[in-house]
Every structure is written in C-alpha cells, then in structure tokens.
C-alpha cells in the first residue's frame, strides 16, 4: 500500500518547518483520474477544461515543480511508482533535493580555461626572466601532474562508455591535454625542430588527443582532437575563431570538405566496429557541419565554381534529409539538410530575378511551401511511429 501520509510525516524540510511540510504533503492532490481524458470525433485525445482546476486554487508552496509534486503521490497511489521512487522524485520536484552537478562542471571548466589563459600570460610576460627551457619544463611538469592524477583515477579501459569516476575527471584530463599541447607548440615555436613543416605538430597533437580520448573515454577531448585535426588542414572550426570565413579560399574549402567527409566516415566506422559508439554523434555532427558550411561558402561566392558548389549543396542537403529521416531518425541532421536545400535553391534562383517584389514573392511562396512540407513530413513520421 502506498503510504503517502506516512511519507509526508517522515519527511523533513530544510527550508521550512516540518509542520508546514506535513501540511503540504496532505494527500489532497487532484489527479487526472477525476477528469478522464475523452476522445473527440476526430479521434484526438482531449483534456477536460476542468482538469487541474481544483489544484490551481491551491496556494501552498509545492516547490519548484508544483505540477510534478502533485502528480508523484497520485502515480504512487496508482501503483506506477514504488514508495522509494516516489519519495526521491517528490523531494526533487519540491526542490528539497537539488543537484549542483552542472554548476560544479561549469566551475571546473571555467577553472581550466582560466588556468590555460594564465599560462599564456605567464609565458608572454616572463619569457625573458625565466628562459625558454624553464618555461617548457614548467608547463610539461604541470601537464604531467594532471596526467598522474588522471592515471590514478581512471576506470579500466573499455570500448564501451565508461562510467565516470570523478566529477573533475574530464576537466583535469582537458587541462593536461591543453598544457601538453601548449608545451608542444611552445617547443615547436622556440626551438623549431620541424622547421618549415611546423604545422605537422598539429597532426601529432590531434592523434595524441584521439588516443587519450579513447583511453579515458572523453568526448570533450575527442571533439578537441577533431578540431585540431581540422586546424592542421588549415580549417578553423573554433566557435571563437572567425578567420575561416573572410579568406576561405578554394583550398581551405576543399580541405574542410575533406575533413568533414573523413569525420563522417570515422563515425560510421565507430558504429560498425562497435568501438566507442557514443563518440559517433560528435564525429558525425562536426563532419556534416564542415561539409555543408564549406559548400554554402563556395555557393555564396561570385567565383565561377559557385554553380557546382550550389548543385552539390542541394544534392547533399536532399541526401542528408532523406537519410536522416528514413534510416536514423536524426532530426537535427534533417534540419541541416532542409536548410541546405533551401539555401541552395534560393542561391540558384534569386540572382536571375530582376524585380525586388518577385524576389520577396519567391521567399514568401517557398517559405509557405517549406512550412507545408515540414508539417506533412512530421505527420507522416508520427503515423509511421
């Protein structure tokens, strides 16, 4: 028997007194059972207009999710939740148990970024005083300390998703990787061991990061590895780096398309071989973004090749939208494909329109058509599922 009254009596409140809490837990929660859903002539489920209205007159504080706090005892009484489940869910809904998981991770990420920035300024402001060797050794030692901590806290290797052993694990690993990469770049910049082939150290950094990401199961480091690889090919995919667009010539575009295709293939391989399958979305989304952005960039130029880029953009968009709907049900990919098709078609048609009114008529009718098509596709998806 679900003892919600007993549950109420046993609970304690942190923010308010127990007597208040007991009052709040009184099993007076109205439930949809009082107002059963009906089916109208079109077969659609309809909620009674009165549903929840008894509850809405309730003014007692029910916590941060009052409707969920009302529903949990009802679900317990229906036998859908055990008493233990209901107790925990109720505490969360009422705000008596709060998770600071996201806040801790944000704090750790901010710490890593600040330390990395601090090391940058340390090197710049103390280069003459400390000397290049001391700086290189210092950064290397700091990175080694991070990796030592990681080695001590790491879970055994698995090709599947590894359970997290510590909330700070990913961030200490990230700090170690950033410091080690910075050290590598500093050594390359000061002592020039690779000479004119200096960009190759980016490939080495990328491959090392990939190995670390696989060993320690870190998506953050994996995405960093992909973007470092792209940087090696002359493509900046950093959200903070805007150098890609203004001078994105044909070489950079082709490099970006090549990187994108490679990342997508890597994702396919990860799934097929069942090795770190949970890395696949990172690889696929980064890859497809690179391909589509590069094609769009080529399509929007006045270079003679814009027509070819536009055609490929439309074909890629159609293929991506169809594939993502029929095979993977990945709606963000569908959205990217649909936008690529629309952009490509507009790029192909609009320059040939002379009158401004006709241009806006094009956008008006194609947008309405796109809305109708999206609604139809969504309905078809709902029916098929």
């Amino acid at each position: 028997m679900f003892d919600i009254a007993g549950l109420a009596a046993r609970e304690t409140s942190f923010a308010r007194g127990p007597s208040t809490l007991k009052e709040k837990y009184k099993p007076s929660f109205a439930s949809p059972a009082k107002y059963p859903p009906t089916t109208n002539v079109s077969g659609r489920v309809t909620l009674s207009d009165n549903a929840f209205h008894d509850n809405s007159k309730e003014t007692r504080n029910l916590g941060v999710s009052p409707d969920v706090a009302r529903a949990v005892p009802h679900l317990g009484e229906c036998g859908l939740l055990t008493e233990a489940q209901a107790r925990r869910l109720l505490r969360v809904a009422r705000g008596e148990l709060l998770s600071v998981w996201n806040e801790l991770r944000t704090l750790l990420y901010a710490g890593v970024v600040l330390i990395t920035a601090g090391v940058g300024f340390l090197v710049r402001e103390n280069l003459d005083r400390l000397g290049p060797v001391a700086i290189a050794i210092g950064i290397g030692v700091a990175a080694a300390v991070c990796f030592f901590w990681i080695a001590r806290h790491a879970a055994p290797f698995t090709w599947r998703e590894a359970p997290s052993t510590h909330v700070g694990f990913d961030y200490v690993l990230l700090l170690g990787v950033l410091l080690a990469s910075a050290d590598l770049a500093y050594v390359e910049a000061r002592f020039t061991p690779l000479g004119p082939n200096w960009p190759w150290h980016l490939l080495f950094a990328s491959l090392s990061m990939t190995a670390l990401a696989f060993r320690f199961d870190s998506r953050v480091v994996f995405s960093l590895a992909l973007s470092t690889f792209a940087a090696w090919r002359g493509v900046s995919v950093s959200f903070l780096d805007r150098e890609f667009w203004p001078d994105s010539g044909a070489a950079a575009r082709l490099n970006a398309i090549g990187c994108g295709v490679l990342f997508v293939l890597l994702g396919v391989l990860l799934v097929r071989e069942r090795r770190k399958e949970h890395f696949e979305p990172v690889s696929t989304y980064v890859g497809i973004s690179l391909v589509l952005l590069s094609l769009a960039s080529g399509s929007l130029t006045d270079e003679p090749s814009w027509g070819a880029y536009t055609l490929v953009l439309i074909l890629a968009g159609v293929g991506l939208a169809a594939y993502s709907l029929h095979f993977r049900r990945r709606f963000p990919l569908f959205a990217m494909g649909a936008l690529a098709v629309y952009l490509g078609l507009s790029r192909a048609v609009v320059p040939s329109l002379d009158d401004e009114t006709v241009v806006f008529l094009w956008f008006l009718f194609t947008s309405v058509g796109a809305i109708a098509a999206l609604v139809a596709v969504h309905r078809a998806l709902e029916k098929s599922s």
Partner: protein
Amino acid sequence: MRNDVEAADRSEDVRAASRAWNSAGTIDDKTLDAIQKEYPDDRSRVKPAFRVLLFLFTFVAAGSAFAVLEFNEVPMGALLFLAALGSIALTEVQIGELRRSSAGAEEATALLSFWFSIAALGWVFEDASGDFPWRFLCVAAAVLAAVAGWRWGLSIFGALAAVCVFLALSFWSGARTSWVLAALAVLTPLLSASVSPRLAPSHRRAADAALVTVLAALYLAVHLGAYDAGLLERGSLLGPFEGATDRPGRSLHIVGTAVVPLFLLAGGVFLRRPLLLRMGVVLGIASLVTLRFYVHVAPLWIVLLASGGAAVAVGMLLNRYLASGPGGERHGFTAEPLFGEGSRARVIEAGLGMALAPGSTPSGTPAKPGFEGAGGRFGGGGASGKF
C-alpha cells in the same frame, strides 16, 4: 490563457518529468508509457529541429509578405495594423483550433504580432518632426508583452515585458533609483509566481524569465562600472554622458557590486532556487572581473592562475564534501546528476572541446609566425598559427 491550454501545459510538465526519470533509469519504459497515458497530451507538438525550421520559415514568410505589400504601395500604417491583427489571429488559431504548442510557427507569429503592434503604435504616435515617443512606446510594449505572455504562455514575453519596463524607466532623470526600487518591488512577487501552483507551468517559466531580467537590471543599477560610466544618467541608455565619476553615493555602489551576488547565492541556498544560485555565480564572476579592473592586486597571469586554481579547488572540494554525505547528499544538495542533467551535458560536451580549438594553420603558407602567447589563445590544440 485558455483552460484547455493550461490543462495541456500542466500535463506536459508531468510528461516531460517522466521522460527525464526514464532517461535517468529511475523508471522503465512500461512505467513511462503508463504515466504518459495517465497524463495525455492533446497538443500538436513537434521535434525541436522541426520547431526551429518552422519558426524560421514562418518569420521569412511573414517578412516577405510584409515586404511585397510595402513594395505595392499599401499605406504603411494600414499595413502595420493589418500585419499585427493578422499575426494575432494566426497565433490564436494555431494555439486554439489547431492546438499547437512548442511548434515553432505559433511562436513566430506571436513574436511578430508583438513587433508589428509596437511598430503600428510608433507609426500612429510619431510626431511631426519624425521622432518616436520612446517612453510611451516602451510602456506600451511592456503592457503588450505582459498581455501576450499571459494569453499565449510564451516565456520570452516575460523577459520582454521586464526589459521594456526598465527601458521606460531609463528615460527618467532618476533612472538608477527607479531601477533599484522597481527591481526590489517585483522581486518577491516574481519569486512567488515562478513556483506558484496557481499558475500554469509556462506562466511560471515566464516569471522565471522576467526574474532573470530583473536581477540583471538590479545588478546593473548598483554596479560600480555602470555607475562610473553613467550608464543610467544619460537620459537614455544610448545618450551621451557628461557627468563626473566622483559623484556622491559611489561607496554604495562599491558595496552593491560586492553584495548583490552574495545575496543571490545565499537566497539560492536558503530558498533552494537553482535560478538564484546560477545568477549569483554569474554575477559573482562579473564582480570579480570588476574588482580586477579597479584593483590591480597582482599581475594578470597570477590573477588568472589563482582564480582558475581556486575554481578547480572549490569544485573538487565541494564535490568531495557533498559526495561524502549520507546518500551522497548534504543539506539537500547533491553533486550527482538527478534527471536530465546528463543528457544535456552530452550535447554541451562536444561544444566545449570545439570552443577551445586552435586556430587554423595558414593554408599554403608554411612560414612560421612569431610567438604571441596572447593569454590562452594558444590554448586549444595548443598550437595555433599565432603561437
């Protein structure tokens, strides 16, 4: 808000919570199905990707229709009123008859109706010299946003209404004082509204959005940097400032800059409100940056290393403290993810690595640039072209 919309809104709140319980492994698929049947949904909802597309295409369609009519020399005033009324009607039909919710298109028409209404009012009250009555328009916009938010339950209108209120107050000579007084006056009602069982979940979210805006406005009003820059003494936010920085009351702003984030953190812990905690953390960082701007306690690299190290240390210690409590919690706080945090984090994680990515190597120009070490610019892969 219509009764059926409110009922569906409340039902969806429970459905969304049950989906989070399921993804966290607390309940199985069978239980999830049973809960979804117990709390049915009669709204037409779409996947987030479709929502974004429908929103975008609706905006493009409406904007294009407006442009086509304007090119055909339809009088601007009539056109704006027509557009406003048309958008309102479309929103009503979509939310009412078509039972759309979180479907993109009805959100776009709702926002367009707000925008066209303000533009129409501006056209009506534009004076002979071509100037707009900004103060009146801000007040009207606040009222319209509040009404739209109440009627259609879109949380963005909560933030818009609050922004318009503070913009209207900024035209007064005592803008700073009025911002503080207004913020303090609505703080408690908004805190109550955002958890009130009387209100529909979307109204509570609108109250949350307004609360964030109000807290930001309060902080801006007491912030030392905003005070020294005379941000609220210009007659309008964009006007010139000719006052002195050594005006009376400066010490109050020094205290305010330090105290407001602390109050928010304390309020978040005491009232158990995550929103206050997050605002406290964000504004606390802003206050620390302000401190560094005014007081040079040490070279920048020391400040960055020390604050970064402190952030990591605090995070680690707090995690250890909470995890070592009975059941992995202390005082009702836990460092473990509860429901939904993990799945959101997976999406964010991919972006975190990208945000630290190195700059590109210059294609076809292998000459090595000089070392710049511009404060972490080398941070990503460690090796940008600038390193």
